[in-house]
């Protein structure tokens, strides 16, 4: 039988009068509905605007109703302007992003998940030290870290290679902490003790028991790592010598500086205006959204149904 944790106050049953209950239920339902509606508008309306933006011309963006639909023809024009910018470099940028984020993802999972597991469920000297150092490093502002990282990468002759991006991207303390907290709070110790007593070594315990149960958090870490790296701007901006190697975010920045609205003298003949920028942004986030949809199931954490019944 499950024993309720020692949370204060909820142990004694509290019968409530029926009438106030119904009224408070109604108000609470209304509050919830209003909250959700307000948040929905706040989060979603700008995105809708963005999705509709490539169908309009820059002038229409300014003068027409903000959430109106323009025309497919305009969308086509925006598409052709964008894809002809510097000879279709946008596809190259997307490919670069995929390589950097994908490569880093593999390394991140390979290093962060075991580390989080070990920090939560094994005891070794230096465990707390590692946690503290990780926390400190996470809080360190990045302005000061970029120069040393650049010098390090240069020391190992990695500048100009994809590794100069993939390796720093693979360092993902946020993910380690997510895994650590997950294992520390959601995995029952007895399961592991039982396995250990049965003679399994740590690796088997990890692979056979912890890993399958950790699918939700692995999905979470994979997703956040990929998206975080996909959106990372500053490191690639600084470290990569050639615009052919840029990931999409840095490329978008270059598009921005070629847009007359942001750089009036730019763009003689480049035809990059706000609708093209909006389209570029949409193209840039489509992979992220697709990934989100696919990892929904993983992100909807499965319950530890089986493990808690004894």
């Amino acid at each position: 039988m499950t024993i309720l944790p020692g949370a204060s106050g909820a142990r004694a049953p509290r019968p409530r009068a029926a009438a106030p209950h119904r009224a408070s239920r109604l108000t609470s339902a209304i509050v919830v509905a209003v909250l959700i509606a307000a948040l929905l508008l706040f989060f979603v309306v700008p995105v809708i605007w963005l999705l509709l933006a490539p169908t309009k011309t820059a002038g229409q963006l300014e003068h027409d109703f903000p959430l109106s639909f323009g025309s497919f023809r305009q969308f086509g024009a925006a598409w052709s302007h964008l894809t002809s910018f510097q000879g279709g470099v946008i596809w190259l940028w997307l490919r670069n992003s995929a390589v950097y984020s994908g490569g880093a993802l593999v390394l991140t999972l390979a290093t962060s998940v075991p580390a989080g597991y070990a920090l939560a469920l094994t005891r070794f000297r230096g465990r707390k030290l590692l946690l503290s150092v990780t926390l400190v490093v996470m809080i360190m502002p990045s302005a000061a870290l970029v120069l040393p990282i650049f010098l390090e990468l240069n020391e190992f002759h990695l500048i100009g290679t994809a590794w100069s991006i993939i390796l720093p991207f693979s360092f993902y303390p946020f993910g380690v902490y997510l895994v650590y907290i997950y294992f520390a709070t959601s995995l029952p110790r007895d399961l592991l003790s039982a396995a250990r007593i049965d003679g399994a070594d740590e690796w088997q315990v990890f692979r056979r028991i912890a890993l399958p149960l950790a699918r939700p958090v692995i999905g979470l870490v994979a997703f956040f790592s990929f998206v975080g790296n996909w959106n990372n701007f500053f490191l690639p901006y600084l470290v990569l010598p050639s615009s052919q190697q840029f990931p999409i975010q840095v490329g978008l920045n270059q598009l921005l500086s070629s847009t007359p609205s942001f750089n009036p003298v730019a763009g003689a003949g480049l035809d990059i205006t706000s609708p093209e920028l909006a389209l570029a942004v949409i193209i840039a986030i489509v992979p992220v959204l697709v990934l989100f949809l696919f990892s929904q199931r993983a992100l909807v954490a499965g319950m530890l149904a089986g493990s808690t019944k004894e």
Partner: protein
Amino acid sequence: MTVLHSQHDTVPGPVQAPVPARRPQRRRADLAGYLFVAGYTVLLIAFGVVPTGYALYLAFTNADGQFSGINQFSKVATDFRFGPAFANIAVYLGMWLFLVIVLTVVVAVVLRSRVGRGVSSVLRFLFYLPGALAGVASVLVWLFMLDPSVSPAGALLRAFGLDNFDQVLAPGNLPVILVLIAFWTGAGGWIVVMYGALNNIPDDVLEAARIDGAGPWQVAWHIQIPMIRKWIVYMAILAFATGTQLFVEPQLLETASLGRISPTWSPNELAYVFAFQYGNFNAAAAISIILLVVGLLCAGLLVTRSGLFKVDEDR
């Protein structure tokens, strides 16, 4: 028999089972632990410890490499932009922390317990959507969202007496705007994390509480939230740290407004200016160390008070 230890259990006392002498096993467990963290530790040292150490070194030396004591710190502290930047960030933090901690937890609870599965899933996706838009994307979107003449929220802005973009960007409005943008891009991710955390609370626990007669808000306040305390603390630490390190949002507003906002609105922006405009990495490191210390103080406080580092020691 399953016993879920809660973070509330801080009463020291005899552990459940006697602890046998287990030195040889301990060494083996130690070794396993080390192997597991090996890969991560290499990366941590390479991209975390060494750069942080180098930054510390930079903060206490000058461009020639001579030890300069606290002179870098006094140099940046007396810069005319230092005070305003920290004042800005303090105001920003007050609003940001409240919004992100309270609202994301509330929304996560609502999504977990008060709406149906399908709706919850869709809402989580929609709330997360803006988080996928970083950098340039946000510049473009907010340039239009903040301009009363073209924004879908134009009427709302005008109701506040803001008739054009320049008025919207008045210095007094900036903290609010920046909090809104940061919340717009950041909340979705945290809602997903909190939701996941809430989802790990076994249904039996919630059922039992409901059978006991607790209403949904009571369940939330007395059971769900305490059980995700570690996650909330983690979020608070990071929200504080990322709040003090605010950089992208003021920078993008500066680009969107063609330079109307100060390029050193936040301390982190000031650090960047020192590093990349004056080429003074030492001063930039000094500012970064100050931000780090502030973030660490908060983190330390939260960690010790919540037992974030404590894991169950029942072996």
